[in-house]
């Protein structure tokens, strides 16, 4: 018998429930009343700030006690306070890296069982069953650090299943995964749901992934309470427009941007490579013999499987990583008197030539406020105060960050951080923009904004190199696609057909 089949689904009861984090004025969730029957499968939607995650955390009993916030009304899992129901509720979170607890796969899955006092012999039976159920076919001694993002999420799922929870909660489990990882996780969850009668609640911006696995959709209102509640088709029909506006990817609602045909070739080349070999750290070459060209006012999209070296290539083109062999050559127009090897440029010289937007925006924040963050580049370039302020104010408005000018960059939401990271680079007006997974984990609204912004930049003559797994994004902005297949691979340099 497989794991999870032994315990029935749990019920959830919320009555006028609310939660406010310590030190905040605003209630994260308020006036929430709902009832979930044992065994129901639910997709939980809502605008950012509607408290979806807070609700899931509360159900899992991980919100913290009095010290961390105050509660109103009641919240019950199977009639009991969630905090006392440990082991009965399993929660999988968004970030794969922060959920791996131990160094080996088997130990990691066993961790939850140990904590709830399952006897040793029983633990290893459950570990085997759980790994089988999520389809993670690696030895129990396999190092967890060697797993891909999708595998890590399935590992987290297995760790939760081994505790045989009656309530299974997934908080944006695929937001940080590439398409392959998303598929893996979805298949695993489908198998789990087919074998257990656990109650299931998932939060996700991309409705498409879960639509067929759930029988009920609940939409939380931005100002508290439940906005809509019903079968997936009914709710999506009634709320589709409002959900789309709040950033949810609703199936069948395409983006509203015009189709953009790929630009004809024939623009002057800004940057090119010459038998380039790339390596993240010395001696660790991931791809070689790369010859490519980045023309002015064109977007080159770097695609390919995980670990093939896409990010490494982008960072090498951006003059941040040293080529392992071969060269990156900047044209005279791009170099503007600074020599033809970007890696030899000074940090300051990069600013007006190549701007890089990192996959994780937090890596590139260096200042204490949003305004100061935007001023870092222009100041390093030695712009006059008047010009600097004009540029900063301009960007604050253009990227809808003006109300956050004095906030600390680290305190922004995911979408705001992404917009700020793009804005900091635009502040120095580089000729070439390099972006690593710019749409990763973004909601529909931010996605459209980024695409629109990049198209404007292309029209204004900026060249773009972007790494992306996101097929929609590639289709929306690419003029050329360059596929990295890993070592010794061949790539094709053709225009992408719309």
């Amino acid at each position, binding site marked *: 018998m497989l794991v999870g089949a032994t315990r029935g689904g749990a019920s959830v009861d919320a009555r006028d429930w609310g939660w406010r984090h*310590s*030190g905040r004025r605003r209630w994260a969730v308020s006036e929430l009343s709902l009832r979930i029957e044992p065994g129901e499968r639910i997709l939980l939607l809502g605008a950012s700030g509607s408290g979806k995650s807070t609700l899931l955390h509360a159900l899992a009993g991980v919100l913290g006690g009095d010290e961390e916030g105050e509660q109103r*009304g009641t919240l019950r899992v199977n009639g009991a306070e969630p905090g006392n129901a440990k082991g009965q509720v399993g929660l999988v979170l968004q970030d794969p890296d922060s959920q791996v607890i131990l160094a080996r796969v088997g130990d990691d899955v066993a961790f939850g069982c140990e904590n709830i006092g399952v006897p040793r012999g029983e633990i290893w039976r459950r570990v085997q069953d759980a790994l089988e159920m999520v389809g993670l076919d690696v030895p129990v001694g396999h190092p967890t650090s060697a797993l891909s993002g999708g595998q890590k999420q399935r590992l987290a799922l297995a760790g939760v299943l081994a505790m045989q929870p009656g309530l299974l909660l997934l908080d944006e489990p695929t937001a940080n995964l590439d398409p392959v990882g998303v598929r893996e996780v979805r298949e695993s969850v489908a198998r789990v749901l087919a074998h257990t009668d656990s109650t299931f609640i998932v939060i996700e911006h991309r409705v498409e992934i879960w639509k067929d696995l759930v029988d009920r959709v609940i939409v939380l209102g931005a100002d508290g309470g439940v906005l809509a509640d019903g079968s997936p088709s009914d709710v999506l029909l009634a709320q589709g427009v409002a959900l789309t506006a709040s950033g949810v990817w609703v199936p069948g609602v395409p983006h509203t941007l015009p189709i953009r045909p790929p630009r004809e070739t024939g623009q002057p080349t800004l940057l090119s490579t010459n038998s380039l070999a790339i390596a993240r750290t010395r001696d660790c070459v991931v791809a070689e013999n790369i010859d490519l060209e980045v023309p002015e006012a064109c977007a080159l999209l770097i695609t390919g499987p995980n670990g093939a070296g896409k990010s490494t290539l982008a960072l090498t083109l951006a003059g941040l990583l040293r080529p392992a062999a071969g060269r990156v050559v900047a044209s005279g127009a791009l170099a503007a008197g600074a020599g033809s090897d970007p890696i030899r440029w000074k940090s300051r010289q990069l600013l007006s030539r190549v701007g890089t937007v990192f996959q994780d925006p937090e890596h590139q924040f260096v200042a204490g406020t949003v305004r100061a963050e935007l001023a870092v580049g222009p100041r390093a370039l030695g712009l006059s105060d008047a010009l600097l302020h004009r540029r900063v104010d301009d960007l604050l408005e253009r990227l809808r960050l003006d109300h956050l000018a004095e906030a600390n960059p680290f305190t922004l939401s995911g979408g705001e951080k992404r917009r700020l990271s793009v804005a900091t680079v635009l502040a120095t007006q580089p000729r070439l923009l390099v972006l690593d997974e710019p749409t990763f984990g973004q909601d529909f609204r931010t996605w459209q904004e980024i695409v629109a912004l990049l198209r404007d930049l292309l029209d204004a003559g900026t060249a773009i190199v972007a790494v992306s797994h996101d097929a929609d994004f590639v289709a929306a902005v690419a003029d050329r696609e360059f596929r990295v297949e890993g070592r010794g691979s061949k790539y094709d340099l053709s225009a992408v057909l719309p």
Partner: protein
Amino acid sequence: MHATTSSLKQSAPAGATKRNFRWRVVDIVVASVIGVASGVIFLVWNQASNPLSGLLSPLLPGLSALLGGGWLFAGVLGGLIIRKPGAALYTELLAAVVSTLIGNQWGPLTLVSGLVQGLGAELVFALFLYTNYRLYVVLLAGAGAGLAMAINDLVLWYPGSASAFATIYIVSAIISGVVIAGLLSWFAARGLARTGALNRFAAGRIAGRTAI
């Protein structure tokens, strides 16, 4: 609002939380992360300190203890952020464990150093009943860690040293503890609070309130 039955207290003003000395899971894990991150910084420091102390020693013997702060900040920072009994001791000790496991010149005695140095900072925080984390207390905790380090080093590593050396060593260690372990940790904690990274801690909510 018509809040109904609730087992928790109903409407205390946000932010006014009761002082609770029991360690929550997040206290343990974040203290551990601070300890491990500090341990990694120790590794860099273990290697850098040899040539640096070679430069300092000829100036005045015992001056090399000025570098000691590089091994003392872990406990002060941990105590300052976590604000629970034993936090300074635990983070400093864990940092020492990481340094030992990866390997350094002092072997298992690193653990003794970690224990003693952590205790130095811990005692100061305890003296203020784990309720006062103003700048002067943090500086004192740094001084406590420095003094503890000096005593430990003089007994374990420089047992035959002359009293002039010992005096300079102790004074240098305390100065280093105050400046590097105390002052820098204080600034770091204040900066961290502003980034929202400490939102789940009293330390973050008090210092970072203006930002929310």
